[in-house]
């Protein structure tokens, strides 16, 4: 490691020679601190410090995303070959998926980190770690056929408007990755929703006529929302469930959807890792789950349409609910920060997700918007919790 250390030391020395190059210090410094924990020592106060830092925290979230990412790649391939009607091996499916997903990741990281570096040089501080996670989340919540330029534009918007204008990592109000998705969703609705974006190469197949009959390209949620409408794939809930949407099917997640969101199994693997290492808040995760589950039960009770009648457990396993629960709502910066607040915040997010999904006629999924709304409410929830604490403490004087 001495060799690597020398390279960085020389680079620092070279940059420090003139005022002009000095401003590029954050660039080299960011790479340096990535490779080496810096030699900074404590000055006052606590002379020893906990081994944890933000880099490790963020890296653990990325590790937790890996099962969902790998499964997403495989699923992209599977859906592609199913639509083509060709037989395929595991490696073929995975290879196709990897080739489709990797460019999205490269664009997301390239654009996002590029902007972070520009801000770091401008503001003279080190590049902060927040985007390491956002950069991985953004591709995972995109439909696979999202054009690369759109990923770039969405990422740029999210990093600049969603984060840097507030002051960077730790200061943003709304989840960065979801800001990117919401921006694209409302700016380019035809490329982000509908039935033609979820399977890689769907449009070309449709134009070439190579598409297998009966493949609509719709996500299960799209199918569900369409039941009872004109041109729907299914006429009843039973038909829907029997056509590859049983509980176990939803658990494994081999169906069209955003890249990382489909497999509950892969997501739960990540969840276990995040909960075991204590990186994500179980309070938020569980209350989000219960919020959604209870809301779905409520709709079951009301009944009426097929969407209302979908069993609660199926409801929460569909779409982006699980992915949102594990990786999105738990973002500590945009979540509520008080213990009580976390329960309220998670519950609100989960309940809203199902409410928007089921009741809203415009789009079949509601998790993205629900989490963004919960983000906006998080400071208010905290404010209420803290105010209650202040009141309780003031009361102490009166009773004493």
């Amino acid at each position, binding site marked *: 490691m001495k060799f690597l250390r020398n390279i960085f030391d020389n680079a620092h020395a070279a940059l420090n020679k003139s005022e002009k190059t000095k401003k590029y210090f954050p660039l080299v410094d960011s790479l340096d601190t990535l490779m*080496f924990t810096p030699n900074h020592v404590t000055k006052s106060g606590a002379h020893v410090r906990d081994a944890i830092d933000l880099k490790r925290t963020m890296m653990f979230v990325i590790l937790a995303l890996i099962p969902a990412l790998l499964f997403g790649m495989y699923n992209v391939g599977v859906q592609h070959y199913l639509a083509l009607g060709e037989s395929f091996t595991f490696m073929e499916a995975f290879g196709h998926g990897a080739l489709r997903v990797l460019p999205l990741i490269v664009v997301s990281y390239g654009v996002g980190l590029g902007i972070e570096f520009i801000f770091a040089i401008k503001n003279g501080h080190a590049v902060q*770690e927040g985007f390491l996670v956002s950069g991985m989340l953004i591709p995972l919540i995109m439909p696979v056929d999202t054009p690369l330029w759109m990923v770039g534009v969405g990422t740029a918007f999210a990093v600049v408007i969603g984060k840097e204008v507030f002051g960077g990592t730790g*200061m943003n109000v709304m989840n960065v990755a979801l800001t990117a998705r919401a921006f694209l969703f409302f700016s380019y609705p035809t490329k982000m929703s509908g039935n033609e974006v979820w399977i890689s190469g769907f449009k070309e197949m449709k134009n070439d006529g190579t598409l297998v009959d009966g493949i609509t390209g719709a996500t299960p949620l799209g199918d569900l929302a369409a039941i009872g409408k004109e041109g729907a794939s299914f006429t009843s809930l039973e038909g829907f469930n029997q056509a590859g949407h049983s509980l176990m099917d939803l658990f494994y997640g081999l169906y069209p959807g955003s890249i990382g969101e489909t497999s509950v199994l892969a997501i739960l693997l990540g969840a276990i890792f995040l909960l075991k290492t204590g990186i994500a808040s179980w309070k938020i995760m569980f209350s989000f789950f219960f919020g959604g589950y209870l809301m779905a039960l409520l709709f079951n009770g009301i009944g009426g349409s097929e969407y209302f009648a979908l069993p609660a457990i199926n409801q929460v396993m569909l779409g982006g609910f699980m992915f949102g629960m594990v990786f999105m709502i738990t973002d500590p910066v945009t979540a509520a920060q008080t213990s009580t607040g976390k329960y309220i915040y998670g519950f609100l997010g989960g309940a809203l997700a199902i409410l928007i999904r089921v009741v809203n006629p415009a789009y079949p999924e509601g998790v993205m918007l629900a989490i963004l709304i919960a983000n906006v409410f998080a400071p208010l929830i905290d404010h209420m919790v803290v105010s209650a604490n202040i009141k309780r403490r003031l009361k102490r004087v009166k009773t004493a």
Partner: protein
Amino acid sequence: MSKTIKIRKGLDIRLIGQAEKVKIDAPVAKTYALKPTDFHGLVPKMVKKVGEQVKAGTPIFFDKYRDEIQYVSPVSGTVKEIKRGAKRKILEVIIEADATIAYEETAVKAIDALNKDEAKSLLLKGGLWPMIKMRPIDIVANPKDEPKAIFISGFDTHPLSPDYDFLIHGNEKAFQAGISVLGKLTKGKVHLQLRSNIVADKAFSEVKGAEITKVAGVHPAGNVGPQIHAINPINKGETVWVVNAQDVAIIGKFALTGKYDASKFVALTGSKANNRKYFKTIIGAELSTIFNGNVEKEHTRLISGNPLTGLKVEAEGSYLGFYDYQLTALPEGDEYKFFLTEGWLSLGFNKFSASRAYPTWMMPKSKRYNIDTNLNGEERAFVVSEQYEKVFPFDIYPVHLLKSIIINDIDAMENLGIYEVAPEDFALCEFVCTSKIESQTIVREGLDVILKECF
């Protein structure tokens, strides 16, 4: 039967290097220092000039704004030097000691016969008043205040902390006298907190005139802050006084004899110390007398005090802090660590962390760690939430309080509980912080603002 309170939050940082329970004499120091910097916010006004003779107990300087509070020499000798820093601020007054200590003799009468004003003036004249600190603000107590109670913690839970039972052993009379004198100063109670799971030394457990409360829990259970919060919390406008249990014995000794005997035992601790014992020395003694031959000096962080709140000192030319009963020698962490082998993405079986992102939590509780002074990361904005709350046993939201201090919002600071906290109460928050935020410094700044604006 005494009450028991349970402190449920906190963290014991399991460092290598506790002091062996052996008391030995440290070599006699040639020079001693009285450091105004030990007393936060003090503006000293000198009484003695360089070259003047002093005895143990002779005033060296007094508080410019509270001139009844005197600071006295711990030994007899000659004022050798007044060290000044930026803006001519006095940092240290160095006294060259005589071979044998001559004491100022103060006339004392029986403690039972003292009234409140007499007790107060006894401590003020004798120069022992600075041992009494006040909460809020955590500075030397104001003699004009009416404290609602006096709190003494009978144990220390800081990492590698000295065993107070061992230190107090044999000082029953002095400790009792100290408690009796302090009892005169308040209309309220004198509270003494002892550990619930250990039988305390007689000096503590059989003392009269103090209300004993047993405390269970990990650090910071031994800090007076959480103890006061659990027993009799401070509200706006109230003051309590706190005294270190060992200082109570020094006060007691003075009240019995009229002589300021500033000798005390300090524990030499830490993985870089190789002769870890309890050394008998005197307040303000030159620390090289203890460090020489007993610690490895290469690549070492020397601390007067404990690893969480102590002051960084040098091997030569540094002096024992006024309030300190512990010296710590830790490995300096000023080297780069490659991220996979020892750095931020290593497995980290030898690293200590309160978070479960390192395997500390799976290790046996008895395992001790050799932690160096590396920051283990860089300072960032607050990102991880509810991390401080786990080690902060107050009904206070620590991050919100810190943020109110950062934006200098006095109303918010008052509402969020600044009157109940001292910097040391945030030491664990500072330790566990993922974003490496210097919360003790922030709290101190907040308390300074409150002192200036509200007192």
